[in-house]
């Protein structure tokens, strides 16, 4: 087995309790545990966060921007999903 081609991991960090984990970057590692340690060394040297997630890049299934027309298009012709679509008189507009 090649020791050159380590697996690619994506790193997510929670910068503060109460916030969602955010994608912050990626790295190569042998396994999940090692990835977590590398992530700590690479991405949290200045107390950037309180919690890390590592996920194998290959396990991420992503939609493509090119697909966006068929994937997201219907939203644009459904303006009634937005609060601003409903015009209410000033007296009750704080709703």
């Amino acid at each position, binding site marked *: 087995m090649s020791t050159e081609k380590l697996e690619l991991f994506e790193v997510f960090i929670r910068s503060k309790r109460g916030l969602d984990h955010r994608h912050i970057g990626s790295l190569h590692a042998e396994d999940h545990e090692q990835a977590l340690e590398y992530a700590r060394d690479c991405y949290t040297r200045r107390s950037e966060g309180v919690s890390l997630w590592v996920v194998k890049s290959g396990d991420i299934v992503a939609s493509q921007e090119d697909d966006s027309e068929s994937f997201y298009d219907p939203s644009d012709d459904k303006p009634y*999903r937005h*609060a601003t679509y409903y015009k209410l008189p000033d007296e*009750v507009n704080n709703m």
Partner: protein
Amino acid sequence: MKTDNNTEREALFQQRVDNEEKIEPKDWMPDEYRKNLIRQISQHAHSEVIGMQPEGNWITRAPSLRRKAVLLAKVQDEGGHGLYLYSSAETLGISRAEMIEALQSGKAKYASIFNYPTLSWGDIGAIGWLVDGAAICNQVSLQRTSYGPYARGMVRICKEESFHQRQGYEIMLVLAQGNEEQKRMAQDSLNRWWWPSLMMFGPHDSESAHSAKSMKWKIKRETNDDLRQKFIDQTIPQIEFLKLDYPDPEIKWNEERGHYDSGELDWEEFYAVIKGDGHCNRERIQHHVKAHEEGEWVRQALHAYNEKKRAQKAA
């Protein structure tokens, strides 16, 4: 864990809560806190999902294509809210299947307002305006709940809720400015949905079984009675703007308190509906079971398709 000592752990936990820090899934937490949260979040999730039924009842009979599209979008949102909430309960170690089982067997509750029937189109207006309005009051407050995944779910939900109440009020506005029959319909819907909406905030603080602990742990941020008063105060001017009659003859501005006074709720009705004797309790659960069972072939088909794909890949 730094310490094996439960009292120390609990002190640290409480300190976090007191400091307005969120509790996250992997943190140590008291068993009671976990249980309390699972009860409250799953109950909230069930409410979103069961709440699709009374409104779904009018999708095919909405008075125009526009109203139908709006109602569909709203009911679709509520299904999504159920999903966010089930997922956040799952971070506490309970499975979706266990929660659904508890709902269907009657072990778990959902907001009893959804056991009232939707008799007229006006009811769709009243639900958006009052029921979503009351839910928003509660959910805005819960954006500051101490459990991270629940708080974040609430932020997402509140963003989406904003149109629900406005579309409901818009329906009411059209009816209230319409002909005599339409005005009567609006008034009748207001009268029927007012009281159950107030009951959504739960029993009086003095009667509420879970309140004290929930406040200390900041699962709840405001008490039932405070939230109810907030809702009453904000809704009465909206009733006046519609030029409808108060649904409660005891509603009166109290200068001294700086709040509206209002009549006592019918708590006997409240507990009867919770215990299963509302108009639609049985129907709601039966429908949920039926939909779940009728969906079984879809789940099986998905599973079979996956197996097939896996076999193809292996070959």
